């Protein structure tokens, strides 16, 4: 054996890649050597990642549905009762000149009544009585009340809004409605789809909840993974002490622990993804039905392509693995640095 002091400097060094391969293999074998603790940590990570991931997916499915529905945001413009045909024409031409108006449909009182009759199942003879041009006095003159069988429905203009710029259709519709309210002979304006706004608000709530939950879970995960790593450092206190005495740097000692954190995070992310597939498989159908109810109200079936969205779970995998890896590594970095510094010889 050569004992020349200068020998080390000139000798071939191990490649960085080989070094990392060795440390990661060491981390894996350490995780395997404590299967119970590893499994529990993986479960904790998996479930913690699962909850916000599910909520985000639900929110995404709903948003996708809303975008599909928004393309048919309509405004109902009710004109004054008894407005003349000429006035109706004039108002509709005026509206068509507005940039935001995509298309316009006139529903006369008679058409409206017919539609109502159809929906309510009223008999045609009864409906016909409303079409009389004159008001007639009630048969019952004794109690002196007026009964007007004249068509009580106003002339309605159904206006489709058009979004410009990065404005959403709902916003464009709202703005257009305000403009139309000022037009002469217009009695009232209703933006169809208040339910759409409600659904949008619900989606927002789900999104915010998912974000908040994600944040809390991230803090919880950092603590949980950090604690596992800290315990594992403490279990190897003697080994770390010896390594320090023979010249190991803190960074060298930390490396297998960082890999442990990374592997736990990635494993937990994978577990979360698998659990998510199971959950979506179990309740995805019910969520789809719930959203279809809204779609039915909009009169467009299949607007919520939920199943399609949920089936794109492959994209979720990358996100979950990434989140798990980042959190695991970060937790290990902080926890191992402190625990290793505490192992002074």
């Amino acid at each position: 054996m050569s004992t020349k002091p200068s020998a080390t400097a000139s000798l071939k060094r191990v490649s960085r890649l080989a070094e990392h391969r060795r440390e990661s293999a060491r981390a894996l074998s350490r995780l395997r050597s404590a299967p119970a603790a590893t499994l529990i940590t993986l479960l904790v990570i998996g479930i913690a990642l699962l909850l916000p991931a599910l909520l985000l997916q639900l929110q995404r499915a709903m948003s996708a549905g809303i975008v599909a529905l928004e393309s048919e945001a309509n405004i109902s413009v009710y004109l004054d009762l008894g407005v003349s045909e000429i006035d109706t024409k004039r108002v509709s031409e005026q509206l068509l000149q507005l940039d935001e108006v995509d298309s316009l449909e006139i529903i006369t009182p008679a058409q409206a009544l017919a539609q109502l009759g159809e929906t309510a199942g009223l008999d045609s003879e009864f409906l016909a009585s409303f079409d009389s041009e004159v008001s007639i006095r009630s048969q019952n003159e004794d109690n002196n009340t007026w009964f007007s069988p004249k068509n009580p429905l106003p002339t309605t203009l159904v206006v489709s809004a058009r979004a410009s710029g990065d404005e959403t259709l709902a916003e464009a519709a709202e703005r257009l409605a305000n403009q139309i309210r000022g037009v002469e002979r217009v009695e009232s304006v209703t933006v169809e789809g208040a339910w759409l706004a409600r659904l949008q608000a619900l989606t927002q709530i789900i999104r915010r909840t998912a974000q908040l939950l994600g944040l809390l879970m991230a803090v919880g995960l950092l603590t949980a993974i950090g604690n596992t790593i800290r315990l594992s450092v403490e279990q190897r206190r003697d080994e770390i002490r010896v390594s320090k005495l023979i010249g190991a740097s803190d960074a060298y000692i930390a490396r297998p622990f960082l890999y442990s954190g990374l592997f736990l995070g990635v494993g937990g992310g994978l577990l979360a993804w698998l659990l998510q597939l199971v959950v979506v498989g179990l309740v995805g159908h019910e969520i789809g039905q719930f959203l279809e109810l809204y779609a039915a109200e909009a009169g467009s079936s299949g607007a919520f392509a939920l199943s399609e969205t949920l089936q794109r779970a492959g994209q979720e995998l990358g996100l979950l693995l990434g989140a798990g890896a980042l959190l695991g590594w970060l937790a290990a970095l902080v926890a191992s640095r402190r625990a290793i510094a505490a192992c002074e010889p």
Partner: protein
Amino acid sequence: MITFDRVSKRYPGGQQALANLSFSLARGEFAFVTGHSGAGKSTLLKLVLGIEKPSGGKLVVNGNEMGLISSKMLSLHRRQIGTVFQDHQLLNDRSVYDNVALPLEISGLDPREGKRRVRAALDKVGLLSKEKLLPMALSGGEQQRVGIARAVVNTPRIILADEPTGNLDPELSAEIMALFAQFMSVGVSLLVASHDRALIDGLGYRILTLEEGRLSAEANPHSAGGSANEH
């Protein structure tokens, strides 16, 4: 290689472990540090290794001033010192081979390159045939020899040993000391703490005797000039 210049060490509790200690150890020199327990032997070794910092005076080891060394330099400093511990301090979940290879791994040496050196070190201490065993399967003397192989595998400039024969019978102890002497002959400086006067007196190397943190006596049979001391 090691120069203590009026070094003192006082622990936070107020205990004075070393007081105004001055001596130096040249390249290729072999010296024992002896004294009763609590005389400051362990503190002296801890200062050289940078586990503790001197509270006064100047200590220079292998060109590093130990009072000022940064934590990054400290690990590099320790890689150039081979340390043999009284209780071996082997990693029990790694084989004899892996234990000896640890300093090379820490230094980032290519494992293929290291293999030759680990084998040579194990051969030197006579344990080549047991390289695959775990330390627990070895006797106390064998474990100590693994510790020595680990201390020398990285071709250190300095070898420190803290009671290396503490738990060994006289015959094994003599064997260990003879092993150390071989390293001295190739230019390594050795500083060995031992309270076993009977053993070290017979070897004929320089002996520094500590008493309550001070150098109370120095015997240096090989060199004519180094016997007198200011204490």
